[in-house]
């Protein structure tokens, strides 16, 4: 198998690593902005597919399939984002004789529509949030549902996702205007004005279950991930297992997830997202028919490499693991490290990485997409890496994450590292007292910039004063000592042993 990776950044690198470990050659595709991106430099072959904007490169199914043809690739891994959940792309790969490393186009389609997936889940006996099962034919239908179920309700675009095209309505008098706004947003963003309504679950947690299915009808689950911590509906910290899920609840969640996957004849890796109320009741939210950004936390606690499983499943191998083989050990946490400035409203901070030190040592995994000297382009998702810490328990995982964040240094651009450092010190986070609104409330109530202590301040003043002094003296800082090891250090040790 020769695998073309139809993606960029850390996930493309992640897939290349798995392929290399299995001995499969890899083909990268790249836009003009990515000639020296890490995924290109780690691949065996690389093909240019267009200009920097995604719609002219990473979203061009035709050029990607042409690149596969040209290089003799026999399979395509879509990663996440871009074309990963595009059923037409999956079908086009299959039509071109390529093995699509993901589920069938039919599974993608079934789960791609919020209303269709809800209907199928309800039919399969998977709990869903009470709501309309189909797109509302008009405002009357929404109004009737709201009257029956009581407020608050959510109005959502049928084709929506990622926090866009949805609105919470707490009072009857706001219902009409919310309906109209979501309808117009749905038309504008997704090209489909259909909307529906759903009961709103207050202070919910976002819990998702990883499933794996093969092409022979075997489906298992790999436990849950806690993805409640979100900023503006985007996940920022994920962990596995969830601190609130008991073994009994895990078994129920897992059974529901397996049922959901079976209902759409699912194979490959997939994720069932559930909303969980304070009463620990859970409801099907949607299925992600691809690898998730946060898959590493599951890998760390189960010891199972999900990308390798995808590669094996795509080749028709039966799952080598039964449900009983899946044992959760320890705890893992992931922080998404972005090129954003947390002290200034998380403004994007692209640019040259002048210096990079990545955290190392025990219990630390960093799935990186960048390197020392790379220029983070402005065109794409500003994720630099996913930092994962593993521990014997949650407390050790948090302590390791904090230690790893302290070691992680990115000079030249701003990153979210200091934000996560502070979050790791938060009491409510330690106690796992949070819901999906936690981060946004935390950011409102906390002055991220205020916490410099007096000792650090004094050290900074001293450091700045000395460096300013040395510059003012116009004296190039001389060497500390004249010992041979130092002089030598600067000579490049290019000499060869010539006996």
């Amino acid at each position, binding site marked *: 198998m020769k695998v073309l990776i139809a993606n960029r950044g850390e996930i493309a690198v992640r897939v290349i690593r798995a392929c290399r470990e299995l001995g499969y050659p890899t083909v990268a595709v790249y836009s003009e902005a990515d000639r020296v991106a890490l995924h290109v430099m780690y691949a065996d072959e690389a093909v240019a597919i267009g200009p920097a904007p995604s719609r002219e490169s990473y979203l061009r199914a035709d050029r990607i399939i042409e690149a596969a043809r040209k290089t003799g690739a026999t399979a395509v891994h879509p990663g996440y984002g871009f074309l990963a959940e595009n059923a037409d792309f999956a079908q086009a790969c299959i039509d071109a004789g390529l093995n699509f490393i993901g589920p069938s186009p039919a599974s993608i389609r079934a789960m791609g529509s919020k209303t269709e997936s809800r209907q199928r889940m309800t039919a399969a006996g998977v709990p869903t949030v009470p709501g309309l099962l189909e797109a509302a034919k008009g405002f009357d239908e929404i109004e009737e549902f709201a009257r029956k179920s009581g407020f608050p309700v959510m109005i959502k675009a049928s084709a929506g996702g990622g926090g866009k095209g949805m609105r919470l309505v707490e009072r009857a008098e706001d219902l009409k205007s919310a309906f109209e706004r979501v309808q117009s947003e749905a038309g504008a963003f997704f090209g489909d004005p259909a909307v529906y309504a759903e009961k709103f679950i207050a202070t919910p947690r976002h819990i998702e279950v990883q499933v794996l299915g093969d092409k022979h009808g075997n489906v298992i689950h790999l436990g849950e991930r806690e993805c409640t911590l979100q900023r503006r509906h985007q996940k920022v910290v994920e962990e596995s297992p969830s601190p609130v899920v008991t073994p009994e609840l895990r078994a129920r969640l897992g059974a529901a997830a397996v049922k959901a996957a079976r209902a759409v004849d699912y194979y490959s890796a997939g994720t069932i997202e559930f909303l969980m109320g304070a009463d620990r009741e859970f409801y099907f939210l949607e299925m992600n028919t691809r690898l998730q950004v946060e898959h590493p936390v599951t890998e760390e606690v189960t010891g199972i490499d999900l990308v390798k499983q995808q590669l094996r499943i795509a080749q028709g191998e039966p799952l080598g693991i039964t449900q009983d083989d899946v044992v959760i050990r320890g705890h893992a946490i992931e922080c998404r490290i972005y090129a954003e400035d947390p002290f200034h409203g998380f403004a994007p901070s692209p640019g040259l990485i002048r210096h990079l030190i990545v955290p190392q040592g025990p219990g630390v995994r960093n799935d990186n997409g960048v390197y020392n000297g790379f220029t983070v382009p402005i065109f794409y998702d500003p994720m630099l890496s996913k930092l994962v810490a593993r521990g014997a328990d949650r407390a050790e995982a948090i302590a390791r994450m904090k230690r790893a964040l302290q*070691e992680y*240094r990115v000079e030249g651009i701003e990153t979210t590292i200091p934000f996560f450092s502070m979050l790791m010190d938060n009491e409510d986070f330690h106690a796992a007292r949070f819901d999906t609104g936690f981060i946004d409330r935390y950011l409102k109530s906390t002055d991220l910039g205020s*916490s410099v202590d007096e000792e650090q301040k*004094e050290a900074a*003043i*001293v*450091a700045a004063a000395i460096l300013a002094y040395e510059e003012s003296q116009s004296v190039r800082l001389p060497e500390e000592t004249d010992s041979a090891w130092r002089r030598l250090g600067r000579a490049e040790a290019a000499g060869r042993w010539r006996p």
Partner: protein
Amino acid sequence: METARPRRGGGEVAPVKLICRMGEETQEIEVAREGSGYRVVVGGRPHVVDLATANGILHSLLLDDARQYLFAYHRDGTTHEVAFADRTVCVELFDPLSMKRRRREDETDETSHVRAIMPGRVTRVHVAPGDAVRRGQGMLILEAMKMENEIVSPRDGVVAAVLVGAGQAVENGDELVSLE
């Protein structure tokens, strides 16, 4: 590997005085080489210091013979950024003689010229020359990395000039709007 040490052979050099400003606080500083390191007095508090450069970007400060600080350093005019592992501290340093003049310049310049804080593309412009704006009011939208960022006015005032148009690509530091 470079590090600081006294100049060999030369006589003692008199301490250099600097003024440090952080937030509202202003302190006097004295720096002098001493032994193989430095003696730095901050607001009357004396420190024995050793400073060494690891690789030109990371530096190690040993304060008062024990406390160790790893930091990266970046200077932008009179602003010295000292980036520790989890916090970046900005220190303003001035030559005492030039301080008064500088302070006056800073104030006018900082708040009258609104600049791009990242590279990107201007997608919308909400103000025109002559418009009155209030502190915090959105003036234009700068798109970068799939996100829209609203650029707001730093103070109450009147727009003197709009230097960019919708669709235009801008670089970090480019002036976008000036206020009267």
